[in-house]
């Protein structure tokens, strides 16, 4: 009887090679056996297979302990242990490009054959490039080595259904096998055969789990998992630079104070933005593809309103910084500079701080006490705010002499005009002026029909304020469609709920006074219908007039809300005002423009982002530091690898998430709203909504990977994942189960 032991890796076809050899002998009339030694192995694990053949019926049902020959499928398995029990003078067939003589010293008691079966298998397209299946090639070499006719192996291959490339591989390996038919030490001392273990094994009650033989399953791996995170889309687009995913994750764990702390790293105005932000994060939320965006705006409001955080200066610095304007940009810059430890003075022309936040956004959308509370947090940092102090060109120069740096954050001051014929009379008012009067409480529009021209938030705010101040009717005239309106969608919805009519694709042309008997003046606004034209450079479709479509609207008041432009008269003529550019370059003191003045972004969030960037910029200029602002979760940046790519819906495993509608929260009833400036939206009751955040591209420590790891080799240590590659067999279950796809498999090079 001849017995052969085969060493290979799971997936290389060792058991099939045993069967091929057995079948070729069976077809020659011998009794045969072929079997594997099976355990928990998977692809890539070292395995053994066996075959035996004999002219007599085989009655041996045992494993093979003393083989006549050994075959090695994988070059990485070539080691002295191969010869365990091998009868002296037996053949060792190695799959290697090397010559048999290279192994003559190592295996001096044996005959050696080599063949480059891997190359032959690859050339014949057998298996994959990373895992070529070498068994049929080696079958050919076995014939050559043991002196069987190749035809008998061809017959065995055919018998088992192997054709074409397998036959070619066997033939080529038969021809190319190199044989060293003379052991270097034919009469040498035989290697000791390790006896099979017969001693008593470990006790289960004495900790057998730990005492069991350790199988280093990491050796089987052809791939390994790593955590690689991506940038969440919300973080990526947030104009304020907020770590959206981060604060939502804190809220999802009911840690409101931590959520606020995360927000305050970028914005001093979470309660403000939680009400007044257009929330571009919600437009790009990947959850839109599943069941609607996470209600980030309301969650930010929740954190801002309910959280508690102690913020103080991180250091004490002697430099003094002047900031002109106390709107969101100026105050954000003040906040961050104060936290860096600078002495900050803010100069405000109006009689109260806040700029647009106090004078430009009405109570029902942004209550005054909310703004006051967030400004107080800035003042408590030691920031001085001087009101009723308008800075003009001469006083700006004065500031540059008294301060180490000056930031100008005067925003967009000059309202855009539309000449209708009666501008300058009480018939036409500017939206921001109207809202300022609304804020001061010295205007009413009882019984009036009011027309608001524009499509932004100022238009909506003015219209809704007019309604609350007694207007008989309010209509908004806008020359494009709803899709192009810059106002926050939810605000437009609320205006429509309140019975404000919006005339889209309508261009006001001229305003005439209509004679009346009464004390109240009446006007006629002639408008023209428009239709959408070709998209312009910005992608917006420019409206085109529809000839002969003019019509009249009767009204008592026109409110213009067409946007504002910056007032740069404080700077010398010809100054190019843009963020990051040092202005008044001849002076030693750095002067910067901040916020809408520099960017014209026109949102509170944009102003906050600009204020923060400018604060860091100033700090770097004054201190020599080089702090960089990242647009995504910098708190997690140091944890492990980042891909500088934004996680899209396609990067997520959306099927692993339960569908769950967004929590919208309640509004004041429409009938109540008409007579009160009380806040319309009542906010959310709890943090349930935050748990809808899928944490796109960022590990939120859900630990599903650790739960599913079949080897138990994956665990989380604080915020890190520890992969024990000694035992990781590269099965990829962790990567498959990660709902946010932050675990990636990478091929191991051999």
């Amino acid at each position: 009887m001849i017995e052969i032991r085969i060493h290979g890796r799971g997936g290389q076809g060792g058991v099939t090679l045993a069967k091929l050899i057995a079948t070729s002998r069976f077809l020659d009339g011998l009794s045969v056996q072929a079997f594997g030694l099976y355990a928990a192995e998977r692809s890539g694990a070292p395995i053994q297979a066996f075959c035996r053949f004999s002219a007599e019926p085989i009655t041996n049902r045992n494993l093979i302990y003393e083989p006549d020959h050994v075959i090695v499928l994988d070059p990485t398995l070539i080691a002295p242990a191969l010869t365990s029990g091998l009868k002296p003078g037996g053949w060792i067939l190695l799959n290697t490009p090397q010559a048999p003589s290279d192994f003559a010293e190592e295996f001096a008691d044996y005959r050696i054959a080599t063949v480059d079966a891997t190359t032959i298998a690859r050339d014949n397209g057998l298996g994959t490039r990373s895992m070529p299946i070498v068994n049929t090639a080696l079958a050919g070499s076995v014939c050559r080595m043991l002196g069987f006719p190749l035809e008998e192996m061809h017959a065995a291959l055919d018998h088992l259904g192997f054709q074409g490339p397998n036959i070619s591989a066997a033939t080529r390996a038969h021809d190319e096998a190199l044989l060293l038919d003379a052991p270097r030490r034919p009469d040498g001392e035989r290697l000791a055969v390790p006896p099979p273990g017969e001693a008593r094994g470990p006790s289960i009650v004495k900790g057998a789990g730990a005492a069991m033989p350790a199988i280093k399953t990491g050796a089987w791996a052809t791939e390994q998992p790593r955590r690689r995170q991506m940038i969440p889309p919300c973080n990526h687009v947030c104009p304020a630079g907020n770590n959206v995913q981060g604060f939502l994750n804190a809220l999802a764990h009911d840690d409101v104070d931590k959520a606020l702390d995360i927000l305050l790293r970028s914005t001093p105005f979470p309660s403000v933005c939680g009400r007044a932000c257009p929330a571009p994060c919600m437009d790009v939320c990947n959850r839109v593809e599943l069941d609607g965006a996470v209600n980030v705006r309301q969650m930010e409001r929740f954190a801002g309103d309910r959280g508690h955080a102690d913020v103080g200066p991180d250091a004490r610095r002697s430099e003094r910084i002047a900031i002109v304007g106390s709107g969101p940009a100026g105050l954000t810059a003040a906040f961050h500079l104060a936290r860096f430890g600078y002495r900050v003075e803010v100069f405000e022309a109006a009689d109260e701080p806040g700029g647009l936040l106090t004078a430009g956004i009405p109570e029902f959308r942004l209550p005054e006490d909310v703004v006051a509370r967030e400004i107080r947090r800035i003042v408590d940092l030691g920031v001085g705010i001087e009101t009723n102090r308008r800075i003009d060109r001469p006083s700006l120069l004065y500031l540059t002499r008294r301060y180490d740096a000056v930031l100008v954050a005067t925003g967009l001051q000059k309202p855009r005009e539309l000449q209708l014929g009666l501008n300058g009379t009480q018939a036409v008012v500017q939206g921001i002026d109207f809202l300022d009067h609304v804020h001061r409480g010295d205007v009413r529009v009882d019984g009036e029909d009011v027309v608001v021209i524009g499509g932004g938030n100022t238009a909506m705010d003015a219209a809704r304020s007019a309604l609350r101040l007694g207007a008989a009717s309010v209509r908004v005239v806008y020359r494009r469609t709803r899709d192009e309106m810059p106002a926050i969608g939810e605000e437009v919805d609320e205006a429509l709920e309140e019975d404000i009519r919006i005339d889209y694709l309508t261009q006001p042309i001229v305003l005439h006074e209509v004679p009346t008997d009464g004390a109240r003046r009446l006007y006629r606004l002639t408008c023209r219908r428009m239709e959408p034209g070709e998209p312009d450079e910005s992608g917006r479709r420019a409206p085109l007039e529809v000839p002969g479509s003019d019509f009249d609207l009767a009204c008592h008041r026109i409110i213009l809300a067409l946007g504002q432009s910056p007032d740069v008269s404080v700077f010398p003529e010809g100054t190019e005002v843009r963020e990051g550019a040092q202005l008044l370059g001849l002076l030693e003191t750095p002067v910067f423009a901040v916020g809408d003045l520099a960017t014209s972004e026109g949102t509170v969030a944009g102003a906050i982002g600009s204020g923060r960037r400018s604060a860091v910029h100033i700090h770097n200029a004054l201190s020599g530091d080089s702090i960089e602002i990242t647009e995504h979760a910098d708190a997690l940046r140091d944890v492990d690898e980042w891909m500088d790519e934004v996680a899209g819906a396609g990067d997520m495993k959306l099927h692993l998430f339960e569908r769950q509608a967004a929590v919208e929260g309640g509004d004041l009833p429409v009938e109540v709203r008409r007579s009160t400036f009380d806040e319309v939206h009542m906010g959310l009751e709890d943090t349930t909504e935050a748990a809808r955040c899928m944490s796109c591209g960022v590990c939120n420590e859900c630990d599903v990977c650790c739960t599913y790891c079949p080897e138990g080799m994956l665990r989380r240590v604080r915020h890190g994942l520890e992969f024990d590659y000694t035992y990781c067999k590269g099965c990829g279950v962790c990567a498959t189960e990660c709902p946010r796809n932050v675990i990636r498999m990478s091929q191991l090079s051999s």
Partner: protein
Amino acid sequence: MTVQVVTGNQAAGHALSLAAEANRTARGAACGIYPITPQTEIVEYVAKFPFSKGRVVPVESEHSAMAVSIGASLSGARAFTASSANGLAYMAENVMVAGFYRLPIVMVAVNRTLGPPWNIWADQGDTLMLRDFPWLQFYCETNQEVLDTTLLAFRLAEDARILLPALTCMDAFIVSHTQTETSMPEQDQVDRYLPDLRLPHRMHYDEARTVGGLAWPHEGLSMRLEIDEAMKRTPAVYEACRQAFIDIFGRDPGDTIQPYETDDAETVVVATGTMATTAREVVRKRREAGRKVGLVKLKLFRPFPEERLRDACGSANRIAVLDRNYAAGAGGVFWQDTRAAFQGRRDDLLIQNYLAGLCGGDVTPAVIETILDDLETREAAGEPVWMGIESGEEVTQ
């Protein structure tokens, strides 16, 4: 009929498929089956088989697999399944139901160690766990015996005198995964061997009935007694099925008890499965050396062939019972029944239990030599001997 190099699992899959297909002229074939190492290859084989009437139903567990087979069998289909180890443990409730329903379901079991600790190798503890259920149990030695016994089991189980389910067992890997030459019958041979299944208590659509409802003590007792009577008829009916098998296939599927060199034996080894193959070789060599030693291979375990076993052991005065199983607190299962068979009949007889090959250990000729040496020098029977462990040795790590 061709001889092919196949595994024990493939041999079993072939027998199950051909047997079930043979019922296409009656109510066809149907079964539930669920994969488990080392039986999975059987599932693959039968799932691929193109049954012309009926189908293999994929299920989510062994419990459901047997439930489907019970339903199929009750409606007159030829039903089968296969499982192993912990799968059998999970299936157990319905295994019992199939027996008490008197359904001629044939199950192939690949004997694997019950976990934990996890272990996929041979150990008979899984099917012996079911020993008190109303099932016939056979333990096979080779791929060929698995195939032949599985075919025979259908004919035996469906015989109107028996109507009990049957279990064909093979050692994990040593048989299930070892490829060796095996004679594979053709469909027409199996068609001739297995007549259409005519289940007397078959369920019909047009005749609504409840089975397995409440029975009074005297009713339940009668049904138990009927099972016992069927068990008692089994050896005789088996012999008839065996002769019919020889007629059609030209090959002996083997007797329920297979003595080897026992005629004048003073020492006898009682063994099952592949341990019997190895023991036979050792006995042959000892006989060559003039030692009076014999082997009794136990193929049928339920019903336990007490009388045949006693006869086969002849006048031997020392018996070694090899058990690849351990009934906790009671030693080896085959040993218990062997002892009981001689109870009160041969007080001079020394019956010693050897627990060998447990949890997948390899029972080599050397192990059996050690056993025979121990048996022949022993003054009296004692506690079961655990082979593979040096007694008295402390656990050291």
